[in-house]
């Protein structure tokens, strides 16, 4: 193997901590009593629940259907009964709950009927929809629906397919374990990808700190009927990032703001290929994955885990220890702190990293930026992080975008080397999310403006139509008057007809009054029942509101009253 490799700019070398977990065999985690399956586990639209509370579901049964093109279904990871569909804590940085389906498992682990797909005879679009309904998403971290990525688009083929076994984050070894033990199945998945994308060149990039995985993949590559090149790439963080892997292997850069398919390259994580093989050759939807449990636990190892398993059961399984200071989902560079340990394992959960003060000492306090540009030296996106920091901190989002904020891949390399210990990536995430929020607001404002303008136009039009109608009426009346002067009695009917309008309004008002009375009676029935234990502040507020309401009511009633007197 003497493929010419390219070195992307930047990168850091944090301590790897891989051997702690990679040297142990994979264990299957036991079936938990309760599974919590979030409906939003992927990028794009959340799945829509298709079961009801109380339903009995089988293992592999779809419980949430994909909603739209960029979406993926979710499935019951085991057989049991749906006990709740509602907000539950999920593994998200915000700590906010999200819609989940809770299953009480029955221990029988009973599969739904499933059969392999004959992918070669299926139409590509049909196969992709099938994969979307089997819940396939990328398992490398971004959780993008795989069906979308398996669509080569208008080019109709994607010459280069890269299988990403980089796994550059410290501590994580689930891809390593998967390649060591399931290399053949990974390549079966690659065969399906190759079929859909029409790829002619297949590269497997694996960082050279995983020699066993490289050997296993090379051995498996000998057995398949298509050419697969297994390439050992230098170990450097974030060498496993898709864009970085592409540059390392091909020397090409994905143009800013475009997709890798625009340069004829598609990248999949090895875990995704494995899940694809299980789906196509066994008909199994994505209901489990490998999870590395490591850090401050007694037995650091990889587990085969059902999606929806609460994280604390895995930590208990690995042997929890005193002195735990927190738990991350993912690695130390890009991982997300978990709000609590009830949160379930989701499709994105590659690693559960238990923190302690020895392994992860509290970060020192930040000092001001001294513009040393070490961040720029290590930035794999070749940005000027110190400038982005300055703009993001000052809320100057326009400049931040001009300086290519959105090319930042949030790898954390800049924060890692910053001698002032500034949480730089936080500032970029903040700026990005603020910009998105503002764009959303802008769209909402534009919609409101459009609707308001249309309303103005409609009112104008209605007024004009009314005026025209009246004019036409008047003209007709006049014409009639001119035509038939003798029927003067008829002429008197015109004011009478005009008088009909107010009487119409009277009728309407009477109706309103009647409805009002009904509503009031109803409202009396509906008297608020939660006013017992209120703070004085709230009470006062309620009183104020009541007073205002009374006044408005009075005003509303006044014209009616006067009318009634007439």
């Amino acid at each position: 193997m003497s493929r010419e490799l390219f070195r992307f700019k930047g990168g850091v070398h944090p301590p790897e901590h891989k051997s702690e977990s990679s040297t142990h065999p994979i264990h299957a985690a036991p079936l938990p009593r309760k599974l919590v399956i979030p409906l939003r586990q992927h990028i794009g639209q959340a799945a829509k629940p298709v079961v009801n509370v109380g339903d009995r579901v089988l293992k592999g049964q779809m419980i949430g259907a994909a909603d739209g093109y960029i979406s993926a279904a979710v499935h019951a990871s085991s057989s049991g009964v749906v006990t709740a569909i509602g907000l539950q804590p999920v593994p998200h940085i915000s700590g906010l709950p999200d819609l989940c389906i809770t299953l009480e498992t029955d221990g029988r682990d009973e599969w739904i009927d499933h059969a392999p797909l004959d992918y070669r005879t299926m139409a590509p679009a049909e196969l992709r929809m099938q994969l979307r309904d089997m819940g396939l998403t990328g398992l490398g971290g971004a959780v993008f629906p795989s069906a979308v990525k398996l669509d080569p688009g208008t080019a109709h083929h994607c010459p280069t397919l890269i299988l990403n076994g980089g796994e550059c984050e410290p501590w994580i070894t689930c891809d390593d374990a998967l390649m060591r033990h399931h290399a053949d199945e990974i390549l079966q998945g690659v065969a399906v990808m190759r079929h859909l994308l029409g790829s002619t060149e297949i590269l497997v990039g694996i960082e050279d700190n995983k020699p066993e995985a490289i050997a296993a993949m090379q051995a498996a590559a000998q057995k398949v009927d298509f050419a697969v090149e297994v390439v050992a790439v230098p170990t450097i963080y974030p060498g496993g990032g898709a864009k970085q892997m592409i540059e390392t292997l091909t020397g090409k850069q994905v143009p800013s703001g475009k997709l890798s398919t625009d340069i004829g390259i598609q990248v999949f994580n090895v875990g995704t290929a494995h899940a694809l093989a299980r789906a196509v050759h066994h008909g199994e939807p994505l209901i489990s994955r490998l999870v590395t449990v490591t850090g401050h636990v007694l037995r650091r190892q990889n587990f085969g885990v059902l999606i929806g398993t609460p994280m604390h059961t895995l930590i208990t399984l690995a042997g929890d220890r005193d002195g735990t200071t927190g738990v991350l989902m993912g690695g130390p560079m890009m991982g997300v702190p978990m709000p609590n340990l009830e949160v379930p394992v989701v499709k994105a959960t590659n690693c559960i990293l238990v923190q302690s003060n020895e392994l992860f000492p509290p970060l020192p306090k930040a000092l001001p930026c001294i513009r040393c540009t070490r961040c720029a030296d290590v930035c794999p996106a070749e940005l000027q992080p110190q400038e982005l920091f300055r703009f993001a901190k000052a809320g100057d989002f326009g400049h931040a975008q001009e300086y290519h904020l959105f090319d930042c891949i949030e790898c954390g390399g800049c924060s890692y080397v910053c001698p002032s210990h500034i949480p730089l990536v936080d500032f970029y995430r903040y700026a990005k999310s603020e910009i998105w929020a503002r764009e959303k607001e802008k769209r909402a404002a534009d919609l409101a403006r459009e609707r308001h303008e249309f309303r103005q136009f409609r009112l104008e039009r209605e007024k004009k139509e009314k005026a025209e109608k009246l004019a036409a009426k008047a003209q007709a009346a006049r014409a009639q008057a001119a035509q038939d002067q003798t029927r003067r009695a008829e002429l008197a009917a015109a004011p009478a007809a005009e008088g009909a309008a107010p009487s119409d309004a009277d009728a309407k008002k009477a109706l309103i009054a009647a409805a009002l009375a009904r509503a009031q009676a109803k409202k009396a029935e509906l008297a608020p029942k939660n006013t017992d234990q209120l703070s004085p502040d709230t009470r006062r507020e309620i009183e104020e509101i009541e007073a205002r309401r009374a006044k408005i009511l009075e005003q509303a009633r006044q014209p009616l009253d006067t009318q009634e007197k007439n």
Partner: protein
Amino acid sequence: MLTAILVMVGIAVVIGLVLGWSAIRFKVEGNPLAEKIDAILPQTQCGQCGFPGCRPYAEAIAKGEADINQCPPGGEEGVKKLAELLGVEPKSLDETHGTPKPKSVAFIDEQICIGCTLCIQACPVDAISGAAKQMHTIIAAECTGCELCLPPCPVDCISMVPLAEDLPHWKWKHPVIELKRVA
């Protein structure tokens, strides 16, 4: 001397012609300043500024007839943006026009609603659906939270519900680095 005068006059005539031609050729339709101001305003159409909608307020600002600090939904940030656009000093919000509130949408209690259509007529963005004697419903995605539907309702069945932060709308917060409190 005469030559110089002739040259100057000649230049003046040429430049005048060019200016005159370009004034016709590149004529800008409408009032671009009001347009720019309107783009900054939040389009709530709530009328708290004293004008019937955002656009009339924008035109009033452009004409110098209204101050830039009369829009509570736009908040201090909106005032700042207007000040930047107009090249004037930003000032604090004029409290007489109201104070900024958290973004809310109207909600109709359908148990109480009598279907009088008064709110439908009041809604500046046609975000209430319903017909006479039919229950009315707010189209939440299109509601600007202007509160204009509250006063006309004869049965007080409309309330403002603040938008709770949920996962799809969650935003990263500005990181806190407290230099002054470093231990």
